């Protein structure tokens, strides 16, 4: 049906990446460049009296202190509208609120000198406070305020009890529904802070230009928001800040906001008047920059005997650390995941984000969905068991599917579900894993016990909707046909590696009927692209891809218009376009008169030679929906009941991503999504000592993620795609990146239950916890 979509083409940047020739931020070199280092607070909560920079400066370093940067509060993330943006950050601070918070920075002609200058800074502390590390202690009366006043939008607001943000919501009559319920289950869940372990440590290069503007290369999921934030913080007109798109060595949510390292590099560059490179070391990136949110969730839910879910109550406390990134919006999104998973007849929600003296938290792949899905899918499994209903049947009866209202990204972005592959994925997946023979945990004996679990979830494709809402979500694309019929595709949208831009190239190719190899993806910058909010929320293919498709469609109209002139057709409607394999080009012909034909390349050449003008289009596109991409994971595990070690045995990963554009890369999202979810389920955790020092204080040596030997082999991993078509997506496509990991923790936890009959309400489910639980049960 399609010429290119759904077919395998090697990714455009693959050779450059494999050979290591592609330049990441760390690889950028500019003559006469200085190297930066950040002075990080050695205390989790303190007040600086003074900073003596003289020795560092005598070594030849440029020093940046809080006095050398504008004293302006900001939030590094600009995805929410301004009224919903809570600002409590400074570029550098005299009041460090977490261990590692930047107090000063240096830049010097060599990295060694920068390190020496850093160590030569003398920072004198006026007071060192006892850090508050527990959100419940932070909220207790009498706790020292971590922030007294912050800015919401443009208004100062007081912070009370260290509560950074809160959100309440209710719908229907919870009490009534509870009375109607035959089973009610209440559970508390805990998810620790986790580190992204994106392989590239974050960094930035900033270069002053002769015209007084600056050029910035940095690790980011959004070049435009980075430009805007730099402009806002430093008071530079946006036209004088150009942010270049560079490849990013893994995102996973760690660079949705503009990282402090970027702003500090800009500060050093502005002060020194020289190019500056500032790259975090791994331990800085992991210990002192940011991690993901810690969740304390309480869920109470009910169902009736006939297997109908009645009500859901959800209390959600987020330990956000010392500053807000998504503290407020995540409260709404967590609610959105909850509400959109099942058809609760009544819902009550109370969410609070709480400050602590720990490294700030930001989104990690799934933006709360993996955590909420795990909690809900556990409770749903338990209710099904109590009611004696097969957990798959129970899910099918109660999940939100086609035709229903859905608001994954929170209460301000609602839309109607138009495509839904859940029944198909459950039917095929359960067959492949052998669901019916999974057995009852009580009947399992022996040292090694196997269990099969299911997790069903989804992620939105972007954060669009029919109303504007509280989230900024639109994309841009520029498509231009060169004079030889090749195409330049210019977009600000970042590809984290999932192949998003290759999908766009195929979408453009499909629209124009030219081979994807003729579509060049241009490494662009903010000066030459139109706005794209960010590559996050699994929006790259669905929103960005549709923007590209629309730009290509406009180009196609112009091509047809010119072709009509060339072929002397009455108008473009008389024409048809086809991909010609032999010519490897689009051929435009008059329907019914196939000898009246011209290739796209000829059209481009003629338009140039005859002064008809360029064939190009620039599109800015906002989606009116954020359709859910559903995923259903079936996981089989084996538990060694003597060591508590859990091993993955088999995985069936089912995804409803609508039309699949890059099959092998889409499968790769599921492989990688499982790997990350597995890691969260059994291993990932950042914990802290009483001084606010991360227990994994030093490095990845103490924060292990799975190796190839710890994960399923290709023959143990089956990928299924539902045969769905999303009418609002480009050629029927939806997102995938986060849906790919969202139900994994749930499926793993349910599989462990099926193996040993024990439920875990705290992740990671480490061998230590498994063994302890087994011994406790006896």
């Amino acid at each position: 049906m399609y010429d290119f979509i759904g077919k395998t083409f090697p990714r455009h940047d693959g050779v450059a990446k494999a050979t290591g020739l592609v330049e990441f931020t760390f690889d950028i070199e500019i003559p006469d460049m200085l190297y930066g280092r950040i002075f990080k607070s050695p205390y989790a909560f303190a007040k600086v009296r003074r900073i003596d920079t003289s020795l560092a400066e005598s070594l030849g370093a440029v020093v940046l202190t809080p006095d050398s940067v504008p004293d302006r509060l900001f939030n590094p993330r600009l995805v929410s509208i301004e009224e919903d943006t809570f600002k409590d950050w400074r570029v550098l601070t005299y009041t460090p609120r977490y261990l590692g918070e930047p107090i000063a920075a240096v830049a010097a002609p060599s990295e060694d000198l920068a390190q020496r200058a850093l160590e030569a800074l003398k920072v004198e502390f006026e007071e060192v406070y006892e850090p508050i590390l527990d959100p419940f202690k932070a909220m207790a009366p009498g706790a020292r305020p971590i922030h007294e006043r912050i800015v919401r939008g443009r208004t100062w607001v007081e912070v009370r009890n260290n509560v950074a943000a809160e959100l309440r919501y209710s719908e229907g009559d919870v009490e009534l529904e509870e009375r109607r319920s035959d089973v009610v289950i209440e559970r508390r869940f805990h998810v620790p802070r986790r580190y992204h372990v994106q392989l590239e440590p974050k960094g930035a290069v900033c270069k002053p230009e002769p015209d007084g503007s600056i050029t910035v290369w940095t690790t980011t999921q959004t070049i435009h928001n980075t430009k805007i934030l730099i402009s806002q913080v430093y008071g530079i007109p946006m036209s004088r800040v150009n942010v270049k798109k560079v490849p990013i060595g893994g995102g996973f949510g760690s660079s949705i906001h503009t990282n402090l390292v970027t702003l500090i590099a800009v500060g050093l560059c502005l002060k020194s008047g020289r190019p500056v490179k500032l790259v975090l070391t791994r331990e800085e990136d992991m210990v002192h920059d940011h991690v993901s949110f810690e969740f304390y969730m309480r869920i109470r839910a009910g169902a009736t005997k006939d297997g109908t879910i009645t009500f859901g109550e959800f209390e959600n406390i987020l330990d956000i650390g010392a500053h807000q990134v998504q503290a407020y919006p995540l409260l709404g999104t967590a609610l959105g995941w909850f509400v959109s998973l099942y058809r609760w007849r009544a819902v009550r929600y109370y969410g609070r984000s709480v400050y602590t003296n720990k490294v700030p938290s930001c989104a990690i792949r799934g933006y709360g969905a993996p955590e909420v899905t795990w909690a809900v899918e556990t409770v749903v499994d338990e209710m099904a068991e109590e009611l004696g209903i097969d957990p798959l049947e129970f899910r099918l009866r109660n999940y939100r599917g086609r035709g229903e209202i859905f608001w994954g990204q929170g209460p301000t972005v609602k839309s109607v579900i138009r495509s839904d592959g859940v029944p198909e994925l459950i039917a095929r997946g359960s067959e492949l894993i052998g669901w019916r023979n999974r057995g009852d945990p009580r009947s399992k004996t022996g040292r090694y016990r196997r269990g099969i679990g299911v997790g069903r979830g989804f992620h939105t494709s972007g954060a669009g909707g029919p109303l504007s809402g509280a989230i900024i979500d639109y994309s841009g694309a520029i498509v231009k046909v060169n004079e030889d019929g090749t195409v330049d595709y210019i977009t600000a949208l970042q590809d984290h590696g999932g192949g998003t831009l290759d999908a766009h190239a195929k979408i453009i190719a499909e629209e124009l009927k030219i081979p994807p190899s003729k579509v060049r993806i241009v490494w662009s910058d903010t000066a030459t692209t139109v706005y794209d909010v960010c590559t996050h929320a699994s929006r790259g293919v669905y929103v960005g891809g549709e923007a590209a498709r629309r730009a290509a469609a406009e180009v196609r109209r112009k091509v047809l218009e010119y072709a009509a002139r060339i072929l002397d057709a009455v108008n473009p409607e008389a024409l048809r376009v086809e991909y010609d394999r032999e010519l490897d080009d689009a051929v435009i012909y008059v329907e019914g008169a196939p000898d009246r034909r011209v290739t796209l390349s000829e059209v481009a050449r003629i338009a140039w030679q005859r002064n008809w003008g360029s064939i190009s289009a620039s599109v800015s596109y906002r989606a009116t929906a954020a359709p859910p991409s559903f995923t259903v994971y079936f996981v089989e595990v084996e538990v060694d009941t003597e060591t508590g070690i859990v091993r993955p045995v088999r995985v069936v990963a089912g995804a409803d991503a609508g039309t699949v554009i890059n099959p092998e890369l889409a499968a790769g999202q599921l492989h990688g999504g499982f790997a990350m979810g597995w890691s969260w389920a059994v291993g990932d955790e950042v914990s802290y000592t009483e001084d606010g020092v991360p227990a994994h204080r030093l490095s990845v040596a103490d924060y292990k993620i799975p190796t190839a030997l710890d994960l399923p082999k290709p023959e143990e991993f089956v990928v299924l795609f539902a045969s769905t078509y999303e009418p609002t997506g480009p050629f029927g496509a939806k997102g995938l990146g986060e849906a790919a990991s969202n139900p994994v923790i749930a499926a793993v936890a349910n599989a462990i239950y099926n193996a040993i009959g024990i439920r875990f309400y705290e992740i990671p489910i480490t061998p230590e916890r498994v063994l302890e639980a087994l011994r406790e049960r006896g």
Partner: protein
Amino acid sequence: MRVRLRVNGSWVEVDVEPHETLLNVLRDRLRIRSVKYGCGIGECGSCTVLLNGRPVTSCLVLAAGLDGTSIETADYLAKTELGTRIVNALLLEGAIQCGYCIPGFLVTIYAALKSGMIRRGDSTEIARAISGNICRCTGYINIVKAVRRVVAELVAIGAD
């Protein structure tokens, strides 16, 4: 200190400081960017290079001790016949995502195929050989498939 290194087939003399690692020298003095810094403590494998034909994490090796040794990096190995096969297989299997770790994988895979560390080409043998390289994107599955593809090709052309 002055050391002579055979880097990617050519001898170079380079001044190094005692505290510089091979990673520092390759990146900062010789400007070889395919050698990536990921953790600096030998845990992630992103900085893997061949030292006298054996894969090592270059972030742990003091450069001052390397006089007279041979170093090969991903960008160079990728141009060899075997390297080209590996790159193609990685591409065809969709094994490359963000791409930060992948030059390190390429070096390890190259060495494993050359040295017989990977012989049979089954998934476990491959996973074992590449387990010193960390990837957060792919779950390693398509990387393992890519290596299996190379092994199959080598068998087909009758290579050892």
